[in-house]
């Protein structure tokens, strides 16, 4: 089975490991990810904050390319790219004038046919069908992840039907349970890490992250798991600094969901580049005899 694939800029740069892991894990599940040709940046939050037209038009170009592949579904692992692309598609479905104006500039026109999916929307049916558990060669016993969704998996700037519970999503927990780990229940799973504020409004962003770390550690999590590359980068790269400032002693490795699935499938952690995390991510896996 083939699915169109939009990696986004992060997965081609600082979160390249997520790109590698997605291809490996989906491959084992019998899904070939077909990266769409010559895709551009979705504009992320910067476009939505500075230019309404570009915030719709930039993802629209990618939607046109995806529609032209003839594939029925496109998976977008990055939460921000997923959100912006879905918003663009929904907006263009109800604004014919805007759609015509954008399409006039595009070689491959937006048709609006491709289904835009988050990584959890693709994984969830694979849990229900038993395929993820079926491919597992080991149970992730002893792993207690705090499933961290951040903002953009469930909250949108326009009316969009969310394929999970908005305030207490369960998509990641369902995957983690199928792998034999014990996800903890906690309060900050959909709270904001500050996103780009980590670079341009550090104090604010670090305050938000401190609340996330405090709750995750207080609830007994021994790691954090996420699907968003920006959330992953922030809560991983800044954890030591924030922990020091806010008196939090414990450090939690921050995994991508694909890493946990990969470990359960017996994929080599070196190939998945598990050593590229800021907070050591291999020690806990070794301690629990998972690698």
């Amino acid at each position, binding site marked *: 089975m083939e699915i169109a694939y939009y990696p986004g800029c992060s997965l081609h740069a600082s979160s*390249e490991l997520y790109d590698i892991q997605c291809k490996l894990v989906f491959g084992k599940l019998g899904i070939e990810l077909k990266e769409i040709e010559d895709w551009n*940046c979705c504009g992320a939050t910067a476009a939505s*904050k*500075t230019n309404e037209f570009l915030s719709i038009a930039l993802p629209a170009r990618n939607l046109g390319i995806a529609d032209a592949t003839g594939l029925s579904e496109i998976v977008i692992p990055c939460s921000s790219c997923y959100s912006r692309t879905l918003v663009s598609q929904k907006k263009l479905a109800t604004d014919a004038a805007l759609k015509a104006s954008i399409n006039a500039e595009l070689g491959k026109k937006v048709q609006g046919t491709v289904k835009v999916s988050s990584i959890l929307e693709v994984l969830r049916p694979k849990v229900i069908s038993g395929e993820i558990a079926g491919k597992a060669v080991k149970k992730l016993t002893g792993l207690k992840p705090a499933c961290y969704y951040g903002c953009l998996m469930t909250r949108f700037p326009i009316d969009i039907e969310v394929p999970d519970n908005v305030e207490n999503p369960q998509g990641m927990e369902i995957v983690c349970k199928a792998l034999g780990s014990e996800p903890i229940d906690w309060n900050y799973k959909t*709270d904001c890490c500050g996103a780009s504020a980590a670079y341009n409004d550090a104090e604010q962003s670090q305050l938000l992250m401190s609340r996330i770390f405090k709750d995750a550690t207080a609830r007994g999590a021994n790691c954090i798991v996420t699907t968003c590359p920006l959330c992953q980068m922030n809560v991983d790269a800044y954890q030591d600094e924030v922990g020091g400032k806010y008196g939090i002693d414990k450090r939690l490795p921050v995994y991508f969901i694909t890493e946990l699935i990969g470990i359960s499938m017996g994929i080599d952690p070196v190939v998945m*580049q598990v*050593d*590229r995390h800021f907070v050591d991510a291999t020690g806990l896996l070794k301690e629990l005899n998972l690698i």
Partner: protein
Amino acid sequence: MTPSILKYEVAASKPLVEEVMSRSGQNLQSCYQCRRCAAGCPVGEETGVTPDRLIRMILVGDKEAAINNLLVWKCVACYTCGTRCPNNIQTARINETLKQMSKEAHYKPLTPRIADFHNAFMTTTGQLGRFNEIESMAIYETKTLFKELAKGHLKAMFDEMMSQGKLGAAMTKKKRMHFGFDRIKNRSEVKALYKKAKGR
């Protein structure tokens, strides 16, 4: 925090409300000040302005207060306010409109670093079709450092270089730094979209 008293400017109210409503697509008049948005706002405490107050400023016609406050700039676009609003008002969208209006009225950004970051992001994306972490950070850091230098804030310059240098070094060590320039082939299409955006 005790909110300051807002003065109702009857004559100023109508045109301001109409402009913000039409540009943001949000029906501000349905706000009944339940403050669920305020309860969920992650930056409300630090900005001193919560989404409900922002809407109130517009409704009473206080344009100065509405376009020149910290929430407009520090909003992290988490969309919690809009998701929880019983009347479906998306304050993050109102923020975007107010920021545009603040620019049109020639106000300086209250948090220049946030504005410079988003502008640097959009500049590299417009040129290359993709966001390049290194190029974009270089533009942003140069701007930030020059601004501190112009103000004679040498300590702030030093702190900035240390903190970004630390992140850069950690990223390089963990092989998370990407040194190639990612660009798309059909840049002319992206440039055409930028041109159209400018003309609107």
